[in-house]
């Protein structure tokens, strides 16, 4: 899910807000973030407590959203063990177990690092060995950091740096490690369904475990590892994990939009930073608009980039995106439509690598023509929206949400209150709600 932050500086009202530079003399100049995002004005560090989930936890987004978030137990057993809320018992949710504990001490015997490049290769190999799909290192910049008190998952994470300013933190801890996992492509085809939810939530849990283990390993090497400090998407774009798309998601060369952007690690471990990449997302998003067309809540802009908080980017409307959730929570948890329909979200196979490398090596003026051709192919072969039928465990995306039926082949068990469905054939999935159905309850900005 893209978290677009809410705090607006007075200067950023949608137009160019370039002001005389008021940065302190020791703050480094704005970094180059690739072609998809540009820092054009002063960036006000955003307090994480003003982002969607914490706002909702405090009840600031209204009763339906608050009750959905805090007081709803999912009907689906797998969602109850894998989604960040809607559990019946918090003890069954691995992320809360792993994030609760961060009392490990930094090893006083520090591992000497003669060659930061070798250490970078090592950290990347470690993260991959633990199961990460993407690992990259960014040079930290104060504009990437959250302001105010630390975003803590458990309320007890206190450390010596809690009150340090972003500039101080970056001076002490110059590197950000982004390690993340990708969602299963086949299960994602049944997004807006519990199958897609599990693709999202299980890989998210795995990512949390990997990052926690990596954080512990850095402490064991004798260096500091801070969490809850860096905006994941800023770090993702700066480290070359991907480019920021129209849908507000970081789009990766290998996995497209189907990667998580979990809380990165800010560290003083000597590393060599990666650079932003150009994989053609910028050119594709200008033309494609597939995510904007299929978003059930019209939260993704059709227009050009805007300047928000000193950053030029596509700005999604997070509130309308968020407001959909209580209405659909009976059937699924995570919409993921924008990630699924993105033409970059494809299985990781040779024709995909070939296409992305063709796009990224194509001269920029020639790219729009190539993008139009690729978009046509994508619409023709993958459709404007996904409607594949996916069967996994007892789930079947061909069953209309709310209907009860067992479609498991060969099952002879007697099921209370639900018949064995005759609808065993066909490959059309049923994804609710359709865009037109959401018009009546999602209030949109003009």
């Amino acid at each position, binding site marked *: 899910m893209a978290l677009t932050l809410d705090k607006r500086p007075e200067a950023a009202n949608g137009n160019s807000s370039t002001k005389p530079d008021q940065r302190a003399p020791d703050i480094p100049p704005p970094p180059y973030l690739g072609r998809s995002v540009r820092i054009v004005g002063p960036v006000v560090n955003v307090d994480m407590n003003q982002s969607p989930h914490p706002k909702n936890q405090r009840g600031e987004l209204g009763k339906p959203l608050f009750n959905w978030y805090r007081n709803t137990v999912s009907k689906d*057993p*797998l969602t*109850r*063990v*894998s989604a960040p809320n809607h559990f*019946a*018992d918090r*003890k*069954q*949710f*691995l992320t809360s*177990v*792993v994030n*609760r*504990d961060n*009392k*490990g*001490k930094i*090893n*006083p*015997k520090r*591992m000497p690092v003669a060659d930061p490049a*070798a*250490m970078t*290769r*090592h950290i*990347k*190999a*470690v993260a991959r*060995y*633990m*199961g990460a799909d993407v690992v990259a290192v960014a040079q930290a910049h104060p504009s990437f950091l959250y302001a105010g008190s630390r975003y803590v998952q458990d309320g007890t994470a206190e450390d010596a740096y809690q009150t340090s300013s972003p500039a101080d933190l970056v001076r002490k801890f110059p590197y950000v490690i982004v390690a993340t996992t990708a969602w*299963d492509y086949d299960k994602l085809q049944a997004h807006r369904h519990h199958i897609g939810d*599990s693709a999202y939530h*299980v890989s998210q*849990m*795995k990512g949390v*475990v990997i990052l*926690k*283990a990596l*954080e*512990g*390993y850095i*402490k*064991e*090497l004798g260096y500091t590892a801070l969490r809850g400090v860096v905006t994941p998407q800023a770090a993702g774009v700066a480290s070359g994990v991907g480019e920021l798309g129209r849908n507000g998601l970081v789009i990766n060369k290998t996995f497209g939009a189907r990667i998580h952007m979990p809380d990165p690690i800010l560290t003083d471990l000597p590393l060599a930073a990666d650079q932003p990449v150009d994989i053609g997302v910028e050119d594709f998003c200008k033309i494609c608009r597939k995510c904007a067309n299929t978003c059930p809540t019209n939260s993704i802009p059709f227009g050009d980039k805007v300047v928000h908080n000193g950053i030029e980017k596509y700005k999604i409307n997070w509130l309308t995106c968020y407001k959909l959730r209580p209405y659909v929570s009976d059937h699924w948890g995570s919409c993921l439509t924008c990630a699924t329909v993105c033409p970059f979200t494809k299985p990781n196979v040779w024709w995909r690598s070939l296409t992305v490398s063709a796009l990224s090596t194509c001269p920029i003026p020639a790219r729009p023509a190539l993008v139009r051709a690729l978009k046509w192919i994508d619409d023709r072969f993958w459709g404007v929206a996904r409607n594949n039928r996916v069967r*996994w*465990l*007892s789930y079947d995306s061909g069953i209309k949400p709310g209907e009860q039926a*067992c479609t*498991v082949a*060969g*099952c*002879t*068990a007697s*099921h*209370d*209150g*639900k018949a064995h469905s005759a609808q065993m054939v066909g490959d059309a999935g049923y994804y609710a709600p359709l865009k037109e159905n959401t018009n009546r309850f999602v209030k949109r900005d003009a």
Partner: protein
Amino acid sequence: MTLRLGPLTLSWPGRDSRKNDPYWDSFINTPPADLANTVTEMIRNAPEGNIFPTKADIHTPEITSSHVKELAKYLGANLVGIASLPSPLPSPKERGDSDASSLASILPSPPGRGEGEGLEPYPFAVVCAVRAEYDPRTSPGIGGQVPVQNGLFITFVLSAWIRELGFRAAAAPDLNAEKLAAVAGLGKIDADGRLVTPQYGNQVHVANIIRTDLPLEPDSSAT
């Protein structure tokens, strides 16, 4: 770096080759100075969750077994098997298969958290195993313990899921895990008492054993 061509894996000399990594040996073999820095310790110390009060609608034991295995593999298990556990008292539903009776001699008293609470013993054990390039018993480093970490991830989520289905499930380490794995059909026990699997030889780590009363279909042991 390795080159994978279907089942064939060739090692490929590359810049990130472990031989050129001066820190790799320490990652695998140096025990952590503070165990609180390891995820394995966090998951091991986590309390067991509650059983969901309503039993989920489940399928026939064969289908439920295939779902348990499918979910375990999705969570990262390389090998999954189901063993039937011997009941200390002869029950009317005695299965009469030789696995259970041979297991009874290996495991005189099956441990499990249900014991001593006046509950029925667990009839089934779900055995998950992950590939272990380095033996976790001799590699105490955070890297050497990665198979244990992966195993704990699988058994935590899988046992929590079974409890959310409304059935009892307890994931706990077991001294006889490898023998149970052999009973569950994952491989054979060699002369040294180690599990040898057809897929990974003895480079395999058997995760916590999940004991459960979810109706399952046990696998036959590889004999």
